[in-house]
């Protein structure tokens, strides 16, 4: 075995898993036991073990979203023991490993809970609201071709680095799940600041922030009350500074533009 603790023994665990047939049916917690879980398994590999067992018994496996299992695609989204992506700081569910748990533990697994993220089935939720927010303005309006040479506009390294930090948001929705108001401010602010920091994004900065905030409100996300649980639970460390930038961008847009009523 590869882990830091090669002598760690396999674990037996009790899982309390949210099961829900589809978007309209009622859901509930169902208890399962899993045995011989290696501490070197990822959390999702532990769920694979459960699902293989269920399927062999002719029962429906637990539906959950996942894909890259490298912490970058943003698909996985489990609320584990009351925390978005579980107990380890700065980690997506797929990168959480079972060595963070102990033999005999009971683990509660739920989907993201937010009005704007309806449940599809079991642990899978609909996050298309995020796509619609990006469609409202999360881009630079240029077509393919005809762009200037990439080195034509020098960008100070610290600005480029800050824009990069904001741009690393994986769109998983943990910020919404962690927020008591189910606010999407951290997600929206990450894109707004990335493009506000870079010269390429300056042309449309006013309309962008107004349109994206309007769409966020329309989707039914809650208001931001500056608690900061979003940033605390963000698996890629998107900073609260971005929300400050968004507020500044929004106020300055509202004060100076007549783009929106």
């Amino acid at each position, binding site marked *: 075995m590869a882990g830091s603790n090669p002598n760690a023994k396999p674990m037996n665990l009790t899982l309390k898993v949210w099961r829900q047939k589809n978007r309209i049916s009622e859901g509930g917690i169902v208890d399962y036991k899993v045995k011989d879980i290696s501490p070197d398994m990822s959390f999702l590999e532990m769920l694979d073990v459960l699902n293989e067992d269920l399927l062999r018994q002719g029962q429906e496996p637990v539906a959950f979203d996942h894909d890259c*299992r490298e912490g970058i695609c943003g698909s996985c989204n489990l609320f584990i023991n009351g925390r978005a992506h579980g107990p380890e700081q700065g980690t997506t569910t797929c990168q959480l490993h079972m060595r963070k748990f102990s033999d005999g533990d009971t683990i509660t697994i739920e989907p993201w809970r937010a009005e704007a993220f309806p449940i599809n089935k079991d642990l899978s939720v609909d996050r*298309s609201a995020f796509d619609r927010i990006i469609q409202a303005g999360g881009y630079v309006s240029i077509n393919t071709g005809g762009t200037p040479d990439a080195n034509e506009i020098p960008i100070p*390294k610290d600005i480029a680095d800050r824009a990069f930090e904001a741009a690393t948001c994986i769109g998983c929705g943990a910020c919404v799940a962690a927020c008591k108001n189910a606010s999407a401010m951290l997600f929206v602010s990450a894109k707004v600041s990335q493009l506000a920091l870079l010269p390429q994004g300056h042309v449309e900065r006013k309309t962008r922030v107004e349109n994206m905030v309007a769409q966020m409100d329309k989707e039914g996300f809650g208001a931001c009350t500056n608690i900061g649980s979003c940033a605390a639970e963000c698996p890629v460390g998107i900073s609260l500074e971005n929300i400050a930038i968004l507020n500044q961008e929004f106020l300055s847009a509202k004060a100076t533009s007549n783009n929106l009523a």
Partner: protein
Amino acid sequence: MVLDSKLPEGPIAEKWEKHKFNVKLVNPSNKRKYDIIVVGTGLAGASAAASLAELGYNVKAFTFHDSPRRAHSIAAQGGINAAKNYQNDGDSIYRLFYDTVKGGDYRSREANVYRLAQVSVNIIDQCVAQGVPFAREYGGLLANRSFGGAQVSRTFYARGQTGQQLLLGAYSALSRQVAYGKVKLYTRSEMLDLVTVDGQARGIITRNLLTGEIEQHAAHAVVLATGGYGNVFFLSTNAMYCNATAAWRAHKKGAYFANPCFTQIHPTCIPVSGDYQSKLTLMSESLRNDGRVWVPATKETAERLRKGEINVNDIQEADRDYFLERKYPAFGNLVPRDVASRNAKLMCDEGKGVGSTGLAVYLDFADVIKRTSAEAVSQKYGNLFDMYAKITGENPYERPMRIYPAVHYTMGGLWVDYNLQTTVKGLYATGECNFSDHGANRLGASALMQGLADGYFVIPYTIGDYLASTPPKPVTTEDPAFAEATAAVQSRMQQLMSINGTRTPDDFHKKLGNLMWEYCGMSRNAEGLRFAKQEIQKLRQEFWSDLKLAGTEMEMNQALEKAGRVADFLELGELMVDDALDRNESCGGHFREEYQTPEGEALRNDDEYAYVAAWEYQGDNQPEKLNKEELTFENVKLTQRSYK
């Protein structure tokens, strides 16, 4: 059918320019009368969908993910090549072209590769204009780093997340067109068949993954940007959902499949830790810029290390074998991927492997940390080091990483001509889904380049040539071909659901993966391949008689989705074996043990095998027909690749 690659005449540097002038154009007011389906929203798909919509075409974009941004391009780490020569170190379009043809072990088309190198410079301009935050120097200009198989620094990057930043750029361009109403986006929709009418691609059949409904979509042309088939091996660095179904279904409808045995085994992945393993994680090739690859110099030391009698950091310099630096002094740790992978395997075969399984070598950063600082290393590779620590529970700043080769990319794919059109008229393939640019081995940081080249700068020109000769009349799903394809898809779903056996889709997938890795992986031989072929046929029969599923096909059913993909892998796997058997030579990622130089390097046979193997489907359980496209090299001289 004679394969016509439609290569333009003239000197290589002028071919693309000339071709762009010669292709037919669709006038701006007619473009809105054409519908184009793009399947897949990774780099190749999102860039194509956005660019075609910007031109005025009506685009329908499909992804089986919940959002276009989840496509596996997002996970590419190291960077993207471009012949900008910003570093003043002797790079040029010609050099990128030359390196790519050589790196591909002379099994790619010169004209395609030259075009790729030409448009590479536009890609960087495009991405910067979109707001992609590439790494920069203090003066504010773009930074570069080196990658395997090249002696210049031409790789642009965004820390270890270049794929993410490029995909989010393409996703933003796509999102803008969705907002304009020029792209209609279908998420959680999986393509399960291609519809052809009179030999022309006319649409696709999809399954809505939330409701199970089977849907029909018609268009004037179809673009497949559905990625590679590395998950045939079960364990790979591909994402869990990556699959070959769309390409394979198109293959069964007439699109030839080219060089299926050309798969890339990436040298630096985190080794397998147990049989529960669901996927493998790559450690970017960029790490080989600063990391040094080694194993203990003797079997005895390696054995003591594996038993835990000694610690890795106790092994003295003299007792270490930096085998890549020793064998390839010119390129050292930056030899191409196939060479690095094979040498790692060789060391492990000799009993010098490390880790509890003995299937790993070290990638050591002690030198660079000493030379600069842990902080400087973290600046460059922080996210990769963190990922390694999370997965293994070990700190790579304090002890070397353990790495081992893993399946990473597939150079083979749907055969396409210079226009990226497959052997089915009106059906195009872009990105990893096609076979065109990487020959028998892809160089690092060239996948992102090809995906975006195809989508932003090739298909927008070449698809017009076809559409201009297609009447701009509305297309519908009324043709009986749609009903037939729909019925076939439905009956297949029902068939899968009704087997009611005892084994899960993953069980079959793992068995197939083991066979492929063992007999059609890093090294192959005729005897093993013949054995694998029989075993795959048996496994396929077992699949169709002993598969176990639950629930119904008319709801979200992830096991059913998986089963359909595994069924296709079970067919494609056999074709990969056939192709590997046919190719009696070693080249790039295809290493046949019978054909090697005295030093153990790949031994090509240019006289007999300088061709693209394009396989033509002949019906279920029938041997496929081999068609050959001869490769001619007018600009690059075929030599034994040397990185010494």
